[in-house]
Each structure stands twice: as structure tokens, then as C-alpha cells.
């Protein structure tokens, strides 16, 4: 069981290997990457920033509570910060379990909880040279009031 907020490129295969073992029959790997469009706008990259100490604590809490909910699961997750280019991975979640159902569900819980409560923010860089903070589920906004 391991979680980390890092500043370097993520290695999905390494995280998969980290949770794999002969006691597990199933491993599920989730890779979140920078997409080339959002809300119809051409994106050239995304800048991730965090309230780092709290983000590490929240991510660690999520892993621990997910492990408690799915006994026997092994989880490794890393979230990257900094400016990422198209196709680069911002988050990798590896979950392994003796059975596939728990591996899938644990993986899904970790990503949903991460998006719900880990204090990380992203600013998209667009092809037209502009940049905007993105708020999950509400597209982009120019000022905080828009999502208050």
C-alpha cells in the first residue's frame, strides 16, 4: 500500500509490478492522461498544483480506507504535479486482489475519491495561448464565484 505526490513522469508498468503477486489473480491499472481537447477547446498542456501536504495526507487516507473496505487488496497510487504535455499521465492507480471484482471496485473508489477530495488543481493551457483553472464537473471558470 503506497501513495505519493510526485514531480516526475509516472511509470505505470512499475506501479503495476509493485502490486502484482502470485496471491493476486487480478490487477487493474488506471492511467489518467492529458487530453487534447476539453469542452471543445484545443488543449496543449495542463499545469497541476496542490496544497501538497494535505494532498499527500488525503491520498494516503483514501488508500487506507479503500484497503479497509476491500480486504486483501494491494494499492499503489501516484499523482504528478507540474506542467504536463498531451498524453502524459497525471495519475496512475494500480490495484490488485485475488478476485477481479474487488480490484476493479477498489481502483474506481480511489479515482473517484481523489477527484472528490484531494486538494489538487489544474490549469489548462490552450492552443490560443490562454490558460484557465478547471473545476471538475463544471468545465472551466474565470473566477471562483462561478462555482460558489
Amino acid at each position: 500500500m503506497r501513495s505519493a505526490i510526485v514531480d516526475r513522469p509516472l511509470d505505470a508498468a512499475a506501479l503495476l509490478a509493485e502490486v502484482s503477486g502470485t496471491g493476486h489473480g487480478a490487477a487493474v491499472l488506471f492511467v489518467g492522461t492529458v487530453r487534447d481537447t476539453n469542452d471543445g477547446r484545443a488543449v496543449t498542456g495542463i499545469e497541476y498544483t496542490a496544497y501538497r501536504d494535505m494532498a499527500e495526507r488525503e491520498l494516503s487516507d483514501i488508500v487506507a480506507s479503500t484497503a479497509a473496505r476491500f480486504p486483501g487488496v494491494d494499492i499503489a497510487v501516484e499523482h504528478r504535479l507540474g506542467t504536463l504535455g498531451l498524453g502524459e499521465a497525471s495519475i496512475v492507480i494500480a490495484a490488485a486482489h485475488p478476485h477481479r471484482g474487488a480490484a476493479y471496485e477498489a481502483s474506481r473508489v480511489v479515482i473517484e475519491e481523489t477527484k472528490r477530495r484531494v486538494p489538487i488543481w489544474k490549469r489548462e493551457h490552450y492552443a490560443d495561448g490562454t490558460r484557465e483553472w478547471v473545476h471538475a464537473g463544471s468545465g472551466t471558470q474565470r473566477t471562483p464565484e462561478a462555482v460558489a
Partner: protein
Amino acid sequence: MPLRALLFASYADAVGAPEVEVDLPDGSTVREVVDAIRSRHGADRLPPAPLVAVNQRYASAETRVSARDEVAIIPPVAGG
């Protein structure tokens, strides 16, 4: 008590600084801290009831804070 609150991402941009300092009576609530911050020039662009973390845990509007606490105003998160 003097109290500093951390700001991030769009909130830091809106206020133009990564933190703000306010002066409040000891034992003030999170709600009172937010109100004090928003009454400052430039900080009125923050929403009236943002998420707030105290010592790196999400806190309710009624949570009481002291000068030793780490207070942070948290924009809607967008990790993953």
C-alpha cells in the same frame, strides 16, 4: 489573534497572493475567518462559503480556530 490563511490556484489568482492575514478574536469560527478575509480589498472575489481546511483536514463553518492552526481556503478540487 493574527491568523494567516493559505490560498491556492484560482483563489490565489483572484486575491493576487498565496496567503492573507487577518486579525480576529481568539476562538473565532471558520465562517468568521472567511468573512474577515472576504472583507479585505481584493478578497471579495472569493465565494461566500468556500471549502476550508484546518490543519490539513476539511473543516465545517463552525470549527473554531486559534493562531496556531494552519487555515487554508480550498478551491473546488480538480485532481486526477
